[in-house]
């Protein structure tokens, strides 16, 4: 990376930025899931580690959350955008040099941000935990340059039309900057009470709804037609998906605070919009699954499609849960329980991660011009991820239902802890499987760079046979 920081733009090979972001994202995925596994072990076996204060659960939880969101999820998005956006515009990335600097400063900023969280320097607000100088760094050093590269690449495209994925990329980056700056206002203006709570959850909801979910969907809009060779089922359904995301995902923040003293009319509005999140979900899943027509064999034989379609299928329970769990009738039962933890992991480790893993697998092969080193290791990674995630999701969902029942029937807390213990162990087991699967993934990608079969010019990775 260092040799490109001061190189001329024309001397930096195309795809360099995407590759650096992709490798960083895998590394952060390993770190993030390693931290998650450590945290889960603390919950499953509370007495096993009493060492450093900084390594206790209260500190480590935020570090895990931000390592996976800003490290894995966001950097894999950046990697995907840096090669998909120019590809869809038949052009090159607006500035590889900006991208390389962006990637370096992103990694430095994330290390600094996590170090501060580790030492207990935090705003104290869930999901917007960083202190305001870090917020400004994230906004203007990490996200704005990334967005600028995406927007300018689209502006400088050599096509008249803009493909669906690129609407999402451009729109979501714009909305993310707004959400980030407005959502962190409580930190800058010292808002307290209900205003603070509402803004905090407006931020948390919209980071998920206007960045993580739609960008993951946009990636699949590229991967599925590209690998299957089928045209996207419908451009017009893409419109429905995009605009319903903008309209219905941006508004229901109050449904995170159904038990709070917010005005009831605001909760009513948020709750209706919360169920209507199913509109983009139905449009999206319909569009992708119908694009797969005639190519379902790839779901078994092709690793990128296997990851992508698994992610799309996980979007179905994700949105069914998301739509209904926020209604008053259900929220009073599951609010503040492990159910919500399971749901958050279904979004991030289920739908989003599977879509992104596909994009990183595909992108690195295309950019390195090398076929994936080992299909067996990739399949091993897939199953470790899927089984590990499934164990996590089901165990935490069950634990959440137990907690919900205990909350309603006022069961003593210690009895709830005892009842949940087996599920905490399963959670740790599932999370650890994901962690080990990711180490294998990194090895596979390093070996792809070193020893993967060279892909001839003009050919796609999917057209080349595996040698292992």
């Amino acid at each position: 990376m260092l040799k490109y920081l001061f190189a001329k733009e024309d001397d930096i090979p195309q795809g360099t930025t995407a590759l650096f972001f992709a490798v960083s994202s895998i590394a952060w995925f390993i770190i993030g899931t390693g931290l998650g596994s450590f945290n889960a072990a603390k919950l499953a076996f509370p007495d096993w580690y009493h060492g450093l204060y900084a390594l206790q659960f209260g500190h480590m939880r935020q570090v895990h959350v931000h390592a996976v969101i800003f490290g894995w999820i966001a950097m894999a998005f950046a990697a995907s955008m840096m090669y998909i956006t120019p590809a869809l515009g038949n052009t090159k990335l607006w500035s590889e040099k900006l991208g390389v600097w962006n990637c370096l400063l992103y990694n430095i900023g994330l290390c600094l941000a996590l170090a501060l969280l580790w030492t207990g320097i935090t705003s104290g607000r869930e999901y917007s935990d960083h202190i305001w100088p870090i917020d400004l760094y994230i906004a203007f050093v990490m996200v704005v340059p990334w967005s600028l590269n995406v927007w300018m690449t689209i502006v400088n495209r050599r096509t008249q039309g803009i493909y669906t994925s690129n609407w999402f990329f451009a729109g979501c980056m714009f909305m993310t900057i707004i959400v980030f700056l407005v959502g962190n206002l409580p930190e800058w203006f010292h808002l307290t009470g209900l205003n603070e709570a509402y803004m905090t959850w407006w931020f948390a909801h919209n980071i998920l709804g206007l960045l993580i979910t739609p960008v993951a969907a946009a990636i699949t809009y590229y991967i599925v037609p590209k690998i299957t060779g089928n045209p996207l089922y419908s451009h017009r359904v893409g419109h429905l998906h995009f605009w319903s995301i903008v309209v219905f995902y941006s508004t229901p923040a109050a449904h995170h605070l159904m038990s709070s003293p917010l005005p009831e009319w605001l909760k009513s509005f948020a709750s209706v919009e919360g169920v209507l999140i199913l509109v983009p979900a139905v449009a999206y899943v319909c569009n992708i699954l119908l694009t797969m027509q005639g190519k379902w064999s790839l779901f078994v034989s092709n690793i990128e499609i296997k990851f992508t379609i698994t992610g799309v299928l996980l979007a179905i329970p994700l949105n069914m849960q998301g739509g209904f769990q926020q209604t008053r009738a259900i929220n009073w039962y599951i609010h503040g329980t492990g159910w919500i933890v399971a749901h958050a992991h279904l979004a991030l480790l289920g739908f989003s991660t599977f879509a992104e893993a596909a994009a990183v697998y595909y992108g690195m092969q295309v950019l390195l011009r090398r076929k994936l080193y080992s299909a067996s290791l990739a399949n091993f990674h897939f199953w470790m991820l899927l089984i590990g995630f499934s164990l996590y999701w089901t165990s935490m969902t069950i634990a959440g239902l137990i907690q919900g029942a205990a909350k309603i029937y006022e069961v003593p807390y210690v009895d709830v802890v005892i009842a949940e213990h087996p599920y905490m162990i399963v959670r740790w087991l599932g999370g650890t499987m994901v962690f080990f699967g990711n180490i294998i993934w990194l090895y596979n990608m390093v070996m792809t760079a070193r020893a993967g079969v060279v892909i001839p010019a003009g050919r796609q990775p999917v057209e080349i046979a595996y040698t292992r």
Partner: protein
Amino acid sequence: MAWTFNRPLYSLSSEDQNKEAQHVWEHESLGGIAENNNPLPRPVIGLLILTYFTAMALTFPLYGQRPSAAIYADYVSLMNSTMVQEVMNDKSITHDQANSRAMAMIEDSLQHFDSPYTFQRAQHPIDLDQLRVIAPQIVELQHAGVDLEEYTVVGPTVAKANFFNLQPDGTVVAKQPWWDKGYTIAVWWFIIFCAAVIITVKRLPHFSWRPDHTIAH
């Protein structure tokens, strides 16, 4: 950017605009990817309509809302009656037995009277220990002459309800409504969304036109 309104459900673009869009659609390769022009399948349209009505029906305040203090007023009166108090204070039986017998008497008595709160009582059952906690607060509110429908029971506390129904005279009524302005906003929000998306897709060539992807690929 000319618009035509001759056949709004077919297309809002002129024939020339549609021909130009079709030409671009078929002649450019978006990074090797193409797009079709299919409509939503009809069962999916049905699913979306069902989703909308489910969203409206499922979120009504009546369901899962906190109980109003008014639904327990009769419980409190009956609990304070001599007959029930005798059972509650009967030292020859256990506390739990006394509770369940007293509650059975209260519920049996309530069944003899019509009440607008029957449904809500079924939604928010209460036991005698909880009733003991909230009863003094309800009695105090009754003495103060306030409308109990404007108060909700939140765990052990009877608190002013969190509804703000602004009346024409400027006063605020805190009664739980069957409809509030959140729903009105939601209805308009949805209508405007539908109109905007319909206008957007009707600017495209009609869905009966199928692009030929062999031209650019």
